[in-house]
């Protein structure tokens, strides 16, 4: 979201102890870092990786919900879903632009996604077999994403923080849309209720996995906290999400698929919170490493869109060149 003329201006900064100390001091003073400011290369790399993954997640995230646009049961739902999936595309776009300020092109990032080198959120490697999945995604997946994203609005890197402000503003309707949809199903026929409960059963645990490994196993967490790229740890955010979501499920009479879930009045420094069962980390790593039910299909769909669109992108560039040539020729002719 900054201008390309500035990109990579300080990529060769000498990282003396004084420089690193002053950089950390700026962060500690809550100063925002802008793209053309000198920054440690590890800071730059961490952001490129994180913003890139975030952007890819938005783009791949269009697919599971996009699967139901043509089958939405009412015109009202259809319009809402289409607008929501469109928003995800916009969010990917804002985020790619934020990463581009750090000297990586969208084309490069796209190729890293398509080659499997770059990761995206594992949650999108689960399928959406029923309409209730659209409700579950909006309510749980967007709910979890919002938990993650709200603190990112205060991230130390200016362009990322600004992109997240816009994303969060737009995303506020997404979760409401999903919850309203689930509520309608939960209040509907036994068949609809069952559909809603089934979707909740399938999405609950993967939603908890969205916050990433436990703090004790998270490799990037400490440094990101220090740099104020992250403001809360994975486990803190996960707990907040559980505490916010469980009452929402109860309110519409759905049951979390976790027999160990129970209120613990001592949690959260005596404010209370929910204890919950242990997450199946084998499943998490399996999906991260490409073994989820939809990993192959998701990448294939992205690759097809990119490959099928190549001739369009080439034509646009060729036409732009022709226009420049013609403008040049008519200028010469006039002289």
């Amino acid at each position, binding site marked *: 979201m900054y201008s390309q003329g500035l990109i990579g201006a300080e990529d060769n900064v000498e990282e003396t102890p004084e420089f690193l100390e002053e950089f950390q001091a700026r962060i500690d003073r809550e100063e925002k870092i802008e793209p053309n400011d000198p920054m440690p290369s590890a800071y730059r790399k961490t952001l490129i990786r994180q913003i890139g993954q975030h952007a890819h997640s938005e783009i791949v995230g269009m697919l599971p919900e996009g699967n139901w646009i043509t089958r939405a049961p*009412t*015109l009202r739902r259809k*319009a809402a879903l289409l607008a929501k*999936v469109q928003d995800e595309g916009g969010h990917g776009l804002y985020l790619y632009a934020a990463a581009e300020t750090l000297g990586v092109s969208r084309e490069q990032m796209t190729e890293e996604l398509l080659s499997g080198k770059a990761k995206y959120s594992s949650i999108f490697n689960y399928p959406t077999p029923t309409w209730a999945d659209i409700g579950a995604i909006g309510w749980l997946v967007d709910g979890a994403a919002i938990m993650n994203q709200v603190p990112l609005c205060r991230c130390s890197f200016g362009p990322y923080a600004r992109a997240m402000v816009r994303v969060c503003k737009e995303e506020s309707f997404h979760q409401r849309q999903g919850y309203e949809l689930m509520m309608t199903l939960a209040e509907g*026929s036994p068949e609809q209720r069952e559909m809603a409960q089934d979707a909740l059963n399938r999405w609950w645990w993967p939603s908890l996995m969205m916050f990433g490994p436990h703090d004790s196993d998270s490799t990037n967490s400490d440094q990101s906290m220090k740099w104020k790229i992250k403001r809360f740890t994975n486990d803190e955010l996960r707990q907040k999400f559980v505490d916010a979501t469980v009452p929402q499920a109860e309110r519409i009479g759905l049951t979390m698929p976790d027999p160990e879930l129970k209120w613990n009045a001592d949690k959260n420094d005596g404010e209370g919170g929910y204890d919950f069962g242990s997450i199946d980390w084998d499943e998490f790593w399996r999906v991260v490493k490409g073994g989820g039910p939809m990993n192959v299909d998701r990448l294939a769909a992205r690759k097809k*869109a990119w490959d*099928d669109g190549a001739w*369009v*992108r080439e034509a646009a560039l060729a036409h732009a060149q022709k226009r420049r040539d013609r403008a040049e020729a008519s200028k010469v002719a006039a002289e």
Partner: protein
Amino acid sequence: MATNADFANTLIALADDHLILGHRLSQWCGHAPMLEEDLSMPNMALDLIGQARNLYSYACILEGSGRSEDDLAFLRSDREYKNCLMVERPNGDFAHTILRELYFAAFMHPYWEAAQSSADKTICGYAQKAEKEIAYHIRHCGEWVIRLGDGTKESAERMRKAVTALHPYTEELFTITPAHQACIDAGLLPDLATLKSAWSMTISTIFKDAFLEIPEIAFPQEGGRDGRHTEDFGHLLSELQFMQRAYPGQKW
């Protein structure tokens, strides 16, 4: 004299055009040639679906039958949908999709302009809003047709193929059914014959910049206004209607 049924049925046919074309456009969401277009195509689809909803809802009021927009959109048999054949054609490549949208928008723009002086105040209101939306579709799709027609060798070839494939379907846009004729006579809806020159002007202006020729139509393809559809239409309906058919009578 136009009856309420004439008026409602003509609006339903127009709504069907919008719904089915919106359905086709929405299929691109998440699969467009570039991210920017992943936002533009749903914008156009949302315009079309919004217009379909207005038209269906108003037709329901005119009918006084207690049907809802969703009953009309999801619970009719294939013969009861009266959209023109062009809008149900499969998306094909980006050239086909963009050209089809241009053909339709170039028709709807003078339609909504004329409809602003309808004797029916509700239609006047819809027309004022829809005219602005559809003007943007012409601009957006027209710019793409020019870029593809005057881009690379491959894009020019694809654009020409799209014209050959779709042009025979454009005649049906101007078909006047007896119900529509009654609405014209009552001053409710535009006379489609008077829209032809504006449509041709829009298309030929854009085609000139795109180095495209307007082909002679040897065999116009039509039948949709009479409920006779192409083979692809049943597949489209099986997706569109899936939920309402699989789980009848429920609230969503």
